[in-house]
Structures are given as C-alpha cells and as structure tokens.
C-alpha cells in the first residue's frame, strides 16, 4: 500500500516533468520572429517594437543586456548568431563589431535618413537617438552660474569631494576618449587622476541623480536622459537635482549615440532591414521620442521632453567614428587605477 503510493508519486513526478519540458520557455524559437539584442532602456525600444509589430505583423523578441556584453556575444556566436538587430546603447559596441566585419551593410535609404556624423563610416550601422552629457547639480547647494565651465575643471582641488561620476560606465569611456582627442592623452591621464582624487565613484547612473537630489554630492557627471527618467517618475518640480548643459564644444558636452545594426549572419535579414528603416522613419522616431529622454536623430523630429533644443547644444565635436571602440580609455582608466 505504502509502496504503491510512493510509486504513484514517482510516476506523477515523471508526468509533471514531461509536461514542464513540453512547456519549456523558448519563445524566440517561433519561426519568423525578429530577435533584437537590446542594450538600450527597455521602455522606448519596446514601444518602437510594439508599433512595428502592429504595422507589419512581424513579431519581435528581446534579449536585454549591456552593449559590450551583447557585442561580445555576437562575436562569440559568429555565424550561429540568432540576433537580427543589435540595438546598442553606445556606438562603441557597434564600432567594435564593424571593425571585426561582423555587420551587414544597411540599405542606403536607412543611413540617408540620419546625418552622416552619427552613422558608421562603412554604412553598416545607423544612429537612432542621442543623449548629451551634462552636469547635474543640486539647486539648494550650488547656483548654476557657479558651476565649472569645463569638465576639465573637476580635476582641480576646489571640487574635491563635491561631485559624483561613474568611471565604469561605457558612456563615460566615450567622454574619456573625447578628452583625449580634444586635450591630448597626457592631459586626459592627469584629468582622470584628478577625478579619482576628487570624485565619488558611483556604479549606477540613476543612483547619481538621486545622490545629487538629496544633496549627498553637489554635482554629478551624467547624461541628461537619467535625470529625465527620474523626473518622469517623481515629477520634475519635486527634484532639487537640476540639469546644466555645458556646451561650448567642451568634451563634457559630448553627445553619445545609440544606434542599431544588422549582424552579418542575422537569420532574418529582410525583416531586420524593415525594422531598421522603421526605427529611422519619421513615425518610428516619433514613437521613440515620446517614450524616451533620448533625442531622435532624424532631422525634423523634435523630442517633446528635450530641455534644450538639439541645435543649440553646442556639443563636443568628437564624433562616434572618432570615439571608435574606446579601448584606449579603458587602458587609461586601468593605468590610473579607477578600473
């Protein structure tokens, strides 16, 4: 009696296991689904994908991770890659793949929709949106006109202990390259050494917005979209953290570009090209602009959330192509000891 009950339990367990196996997760396996390797914030890209699905009937599946992790994954996967679109938060990831000849050329009308300085040199990736580096400041602790005029000033002793930065963010590495290009490698190294001595290293960009807001630091080196995201959740009026655009072609006014590419071995090239075209179309760019703090790059589409008109940002002249894969910045940071 006892034994037969246990046997039934064993059999029941087997059945359960079989049914679980049958229902094992694996959605991307559905035929015809477009797989997007996505490192951009989910909200805007999912809004874009939803609009694309509605318009074309093509289903979209996401794999989310950081841009370098996904890029390395595409390298490792080689011709087995399931990725149809690589949507990268940072251009450095796209350049890395372009340098390894792992991207397919994009149709001419896709790259033509976006100004050339935001695209890959070989027309194998296209910029979609951009963010601007800014100084966040706590309006109760410091007046906007007392802020440093250049990002270079933060290495000076008068700013010791007053600011936060995120040295191990991919975007920050891009800024390090901009400093290198505009001021030279030695100056960049001295600047990083100063930041290490003066600043508080934060591992998360959103955490820096909150740290400025509660006055833990007066300033933070951050991109504007993180402030916009917090403002959206909590209400801009309630925040003591404010945004200051440095402008003046300063390396601290760098624009970082998010873009997309089609991996060379993408299984659904035709559908991927339709998605790329949609992402840079007027309609797609409007969807992105509504959902994100990032600024659409297609001329004529205006972000409803932008704090300052795109044309008047006066950003750093260093382009995504010049920034490349930012490997030199990582070397510099390691030499200085912040990475």
């Amino acid at each position, binding site marked *: 009696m006892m034994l037969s009950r246990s046997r039934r339990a064993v059999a029941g367990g087997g059945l359960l296991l079989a049914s*679980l196996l049958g229902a094992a997760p694996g959605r991307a396996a559905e035929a015809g689904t477009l797989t997007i390797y996505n490192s951009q914030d989910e909200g805007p890209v999912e809004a874009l994908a939803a609009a694309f699905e509605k318009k074309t009937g093509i289903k979209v*599946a996401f794999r989310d991770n950081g841009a370098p992790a996904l890029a390395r994954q595409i390298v490792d*996967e080689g011709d087995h890659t399931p990725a149809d679109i690589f949507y990268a938060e940072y251009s450095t990831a796209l350049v890395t793949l372009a340098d390894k000849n792992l991207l397919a050329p994009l149709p001419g009308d896709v790259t033509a929709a976006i100004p050339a300085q935001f695209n890959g040199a070989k027309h194998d990736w296209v910029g979609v949106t951009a963010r601007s580096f800014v100084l966040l400041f706590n309006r109760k602790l410091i007046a906007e006109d007392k802020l440093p005029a250049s990002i270079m000033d933060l290495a000076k002793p008068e700013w010791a202990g007053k600011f936060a930065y995120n040295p191990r963010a991919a975007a920050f590495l891009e800024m390090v390259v901009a400093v290198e290009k505009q001021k030279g490698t030695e100056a960049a190294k001295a600047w990083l050494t100063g930041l290490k001595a003066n600043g508080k290293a934060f591992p998360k960009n959103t955490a820096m917005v909150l740290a400025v807001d509660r006055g833990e630091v007066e300033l933070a080196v951050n991109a504007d979209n993180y402030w916009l995201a917090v403002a959206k959740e909590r209400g801009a009026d309630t925040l003591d953290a404010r945004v200051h655009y440095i402008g003046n072609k300063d390396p601290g006014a760098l624009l970082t570009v998010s873009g997309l590419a089609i991996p060379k071995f993408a299984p659904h090239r035709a559908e991927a090209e339709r998605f790329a075209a949609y992402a840079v179309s007027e309609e797609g760019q409007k969807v992105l602009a509504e959902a994100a703090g990032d600024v659409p790059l297609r001329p004529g589409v205006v972000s409803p959330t932008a704090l300052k008109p795109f044309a008047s940002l006066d950003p750093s002249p260093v382009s995504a192509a010049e920034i490349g894969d930012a490997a030199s910045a990582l070397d510099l940071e390691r030499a200085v000891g912040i990475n």
Partner: protein
Amino acid sequence: MAEAAFSLSALRRRGSSALARRGSSAAPSWLVLPLVAVALLAALPLAYVAWQAAAVGWAGSAALLFRPFTAALLASTLELAAAVTLGSVLVGTAAAWLVERSDLPGRSVWRVLVPLPLAMPALVSAFAWLSLTPRVEGMAGAVLVLVLAEYPLVYLPVAAALRGMDPALEDVARSVGHGPWRIFGRTVLPQLVPALSGGVLLVTLHMLVEFGPLALLRVETFTTAIYEAYELSYDGAAAAMLSAVLIALCLCVMAAELLLRGRRRFSRAASGAIAAHAPARLGHATLPAFAGLAALLGLALGLPVAMLAYWLLLARRAALPLDRILSAVGDSVQLAALGAVLTTAVGLSLVLAAFRRRGRMAVLAERLPFVVHALPGLVVALALVYFCLRVAPVLYQTTALLLVAYALLFLPLAQTALRPAVEQVPPAMEEVALALGRAPWRVLLTVTLPNILPGLSAATLLVFMQLMKELTATLVLAPTGVRTLAMELWAQSSQMKYGTAAPYAALLVLVSGAPAYWATVELQKRRGRR
C-alpha cells in the same frame, strides 16, 4: 520493524561497511555516465579561466591581475566577508544560546521565529532597505543587511549542537567551580566548533560569490567587478582574471575549513538518553535579551515586509502590468522546477554511486561539485557560453544549457539533502531484490527510490527555492524573451523603480522564501534527530 531495519543499516555502516558496499550494485553501471559528465562540466569554468588567461598571454594577464584596482577589490571583498561572517557568528550564536539555553520567556515561539529571515532573499531585503533609505548604501549598510540575512545559517547548526550537547561536561565544569562565562568559553564553545565552522564556511563563501544585493548596495567586490568588466569590456580577459583571484580565494576558505574541522572530534561514546539542560537564569538581563531578539527580527523580517507592503499599496493606484508579472512567475517556476528535478536526479546518481560503488572516480565526482559551488554563477555561465558555442551551438540560449548551469551550481545542495536519506536505506534491501532476480534498474525504481522519497522531495524543494532566486547565471544564459522574477526585480530596482519592483519582490518571497524556510528547518530537524 522499521526501526530494526534502520539500526541494522547503522550497524552495517559503522562496522562491515566494506562488505556491505563491495558487490551490492543496486546502482546500475550507467551511473558512471553522470559521474563523467559532472566531472567534465565542473572542470569547464576552471578551463575557461585558464583559456582566457592564455589568450592575453602572461604579460597581459599579469597587467590585469596586478593593477591597483584588483588590490582595492581584494581589500573590500575580504572586509565584507570577514565582517558579515563575524556578525553572523555573534548574532547567530547569541540567539541560539538564548533560545536553547536560557530561561527567556516564549522560547518555543522564538524557536520558530528566529530562523524565519531565511524566507527573505537577500536581494529582496537589500531592495527593501534601499527603498527606505539610501544610507544603507556602502560597506556598513551592506554588512548590516547581509548579517540580517545570513545569521540563520549560523543559528540553525549552533542551536542544534547546543540541543544535542551532553550536559554532563558542563556539570563537571560547574562542579570544579567554573563560572558561567568560563563554562561557555572553555566547555561549550569548543564543542560548537564543528557547527560553527560549517556556518562560517557557508556564510563566507556566500559573501565571496554574492552579487545582487551587493550591486544594489553599491559595494564593490570581485563578483560585482567581474560583472562590471563583463558589461564594459569587449574582451573576456579582465573578467576572467578577476575570476581567477576569486576562485583562489574560495579554495583557500574551503581548505581552511577542512583543516579546522579535520583536527577536532567531539562525540559522545554512548548515545544514551541526554539529560535535559537546566536553563541559565537571565535575571536582569531578561528584558534586554528579549528586546534584542525582537529588534533582530524586526530589522531582518519586519522592516522588509513593511517596505514591500508600503510599495505594493502605493503601486495599487497605478496599473500593475499583470501579464508581465504572471509571465515572470511562470518563467521562474518552470525554470526552477525543471532545474530542481534535473539537479536532484544528477545529485542522486552521484550520491548513490558514492555509497554503492565507492572508488576514486566516485569520490572525486561527489566532491567536485562543492568546488564549483564556490564559483560565482557568472563565471560558470560565461564558461558554458564559451564552450557551448564551440562544441554544441544548437544548445546555445536554450533552456537546456541554463539547466546544466543550474545543476552545476546547486548540485552540492541536492547532495547534502540526499545523503542522509540514501544512508538510511539498508543495502540488504536492495541485495534481496537483486538476489530475487530483479534487474538493477527495477530495483532502483521499486526499492531504492520509494524508500528515499522524503529525502528526494526535500532535496528537490530546496534546490527549487534556490533556483527561484538565482540571478547571474540566468541573466547570461536564459533563452531570449525569458524574464524571471529575480531578473525583473534586479532590472527594476537597479533603475530605482521601487514601486514597479515591489510586486516581483513580494512574489519572490512568497514563492521561494516561505518554502525555503520550511525546507531548511525540516532538514535541520531531521539531521538533529539522527
């Protein structure tokens, strides 16, 4: 009848074990297959790290290893591990002594309550604290949050040891005039060493490989730095070099524990009835002791639960993304259930092989998982990605590969839970069935398995709970589109969206934490009874 059988098996185990184990192969010969598979898979992470080091060459590896950043990480990792371990030992031992040995009012209630924080995954409590105040960010806060999460791992074995201790020794010490502190220090504490060292090993290893809560609380250790390097660098060498240091650290801790435990033996010669301990009188210390335990539970359990309730009530106003939440529950439960069944099955074959067909290979395969258990999930996951793409690209990004990682990471848990159950099945039962002409696989199915069913289900449950919480390997290996509760909690809370994160956190506690508490306490009871 059953008792006679058990004592017979006990006799056999202690006495003529060689005879009992020699030829009785109720464990069919194909059991060697999982042994080989486990041995090969367990070697992969180590091979991966070596491979990456070889790829950047000696100079490149040395440059990555001996940079100032590594030294800073080493310092903070050791600081965290030492502080949390020490804190857990103090809190866990003090609580165990109060509950087991003092005249504290309501001891039977405390006995249930004190280990209850096991039900609160550290990722959830870190989230809850962080959403209350950013002051918990940093080392001190992390130590606080993690001691509150980890102390039950010291409390449980120490409480069991205090219960099982022969009071005669303490009576002798008292009779020669030793005071209560001296008795604790000279007589009780040495007997607690095995229980303590088990707890210390567990907590220290947890701290070395812990990731989610530390990343949320902004404490940099090797694990968070490995993840950052993985997220930042376009080659895998930096992450691999940091992993090498971490692996070395974990091995050191395990070796130290072996040395510490190996030298001491505390057992009673006679297993006769144990006289009850006379509870120590707390006197004036009663109120502070009572308040201390209450505060402990308030911080470890009350506060996170209250914060979750707060965010959930707040979130009710906004629309909850029910579809997304339900799909996360579905993904979590499916993956954890499949993983638990696979892990337990492999664990069972290892345990059976080790008990029924000894031999070097079996011993090695039984121990190897414990080494892998000391590795961070991320390293295991990266190794699997690397080799899978080269050897079996079909499996890449499938549930199957994720399940392999789960099994590798959690085999020791299944083995630990299964071993006592298998030990209790007298080999004679299997021998009789074999002698009567049943095929070995039928003996396994009809004799062995039904007899170890309780242990089997406890092991499955235990692994299931751990898998529900697993984050790092899942992040890397999950099939595209799969989002588990832990992944959602991680994604939302690292963007500081506390309201959005709260439902996932609450579900994680309900689905994984509550049964985890139950299973661990049950297991402890069963061990205590043996």
